[in-house]
């Protein structure tokens, strides 16, 4: 097994065990999405109209829950020192951790989103768009989040600052994602998914470098 897949597998394994946070994020997402129709009321038209935005915001917030631990757990118990000295560059370490985070958080959220779409009376084509937008967009949330996780690495309770750093950076993802769902709902053509794909690709390509730089900064401290 290569060093990259060893780290990926370990992080996936840890996220599935106690304190891992993968099930927590999924539960949070499902509960917020279930509460929302109860709060908004039974107007089916209104529910379908807000579904894209609400589910996207809920997905981003749920993904954030476990993001602050992306590097911090390893930093606090000294594993990060050992990982940093491995043959893997910190850029690849960041990439492996982002990928593990997406596979354990973003992907499960995406997979249950069609089910939650039913609660919002979302028609089939719009549900498909929602599913695709989350599939394309949640890797970007993990990627951008990794930068924030690296920056807040040495802060106690850094989890509270993390959303303030990365939520503004994620506004394009929320806008493109929910706009694509709305457009499908109205039956009009939209570039939302393509723009989201561009944003996600850029985030996934650039973030490993930024995250590695911020981790490097904190290893010295």
């Amino acid at each position: 097994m290569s060093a990259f897949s060893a780290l990926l597998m370990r992080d996936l394994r840890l996220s599935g065990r106690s304190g891992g946070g993968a099930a927590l994020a999924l539960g949070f997402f499902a509960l917020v999405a279930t509460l929302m129709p109860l709060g908004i009321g039974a107007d089916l038209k209104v529910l379908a109209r807000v579904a894209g935005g609400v589910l996207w915001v809920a997905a981003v917030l749920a993904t954030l829950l476990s993001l602050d631990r992306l590097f911090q757990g390893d930093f606090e118990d000294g594993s990060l020192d050992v990982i940093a000295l491995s043959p893997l560059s910190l850029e690849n370490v960041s990439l492996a951790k982002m990928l593990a985070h997406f596979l354990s958080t973003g992907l499960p959220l995406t997979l249950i989103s069609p089910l939650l779409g039913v609660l919002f009376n979302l028609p089939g084509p719009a549900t498909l768009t929602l599913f695709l937008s989350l599939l394309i967009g949640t890797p970007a949330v993990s990627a951008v989040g990794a930068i924030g996780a690296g920056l807040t690495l040495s802060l106690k309770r850094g989890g509270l600052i993390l959303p303030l750093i990365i939520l503004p950076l994620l506004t394009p993802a929320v806008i493109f994602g929910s706009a694509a769902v709305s457009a499908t709902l109205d039956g009009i053509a939209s570039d939302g998914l393509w723009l989201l794909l561009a944003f996600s690709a850029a985030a996934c390509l650039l973030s490993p470098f930024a995250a590695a730089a911020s981790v490097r900064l904190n290893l010295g401290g």
Partner: protein
Amino acid sequence: MISSLTAENLSCARGDRVLFEGLNFRMERGQALAVEGANGAGKTSLLRLIAGFLAPKSGHLLLIADNGESDDGEERGKSIGWLGHQDGLKPQLTVREQLSFFAALYESSENTDGALDEVGLARQKHFPCRFLSAGQRRRLALARLMVSRRPLWLLDEPLAALDSEGEALVRRLMTRHCQAGGLLIAATHAPLDFAMPAIRL
């Protein structure tokens, strides 16, 4: 293999506080070096500096290896076996999962079960690390150090939490490492009972 490690006029500062300055030493293949000093003297900082986590305030560290020489911290890190004062173990993983992960991460073909035997954790192989005592955790960290197969060992208080049998194990591993041509630097506040030159911070 490393043929030498040289520190020239090395100084280290954390914030405005200068921890040490004008530090010189030279180590050759098979040599060990103890770093002594009171709490807060900068022993751990020196190790982190050698590992490339910290940049020196001034001075040079030159590593000459068979495949060339370098004074780059990140490149130096790829020759280093690290035993920090924290053991770097995950409570949720079993002893064996933990060690196999490190072996794969370091692309080492070392026999992990053999290393566990050597450090006396063969019976605890399937225990999650949260059930281990502080001394057993230290032993697992030692097994990781063996499996990493790196030529330059940096040990931070290697005897911490170990019983007398564990201390003997550390000395045995250190002796074997040096005999095989490796280098090691051990930071300690108490004598290690191991024949090696010492620098005092």
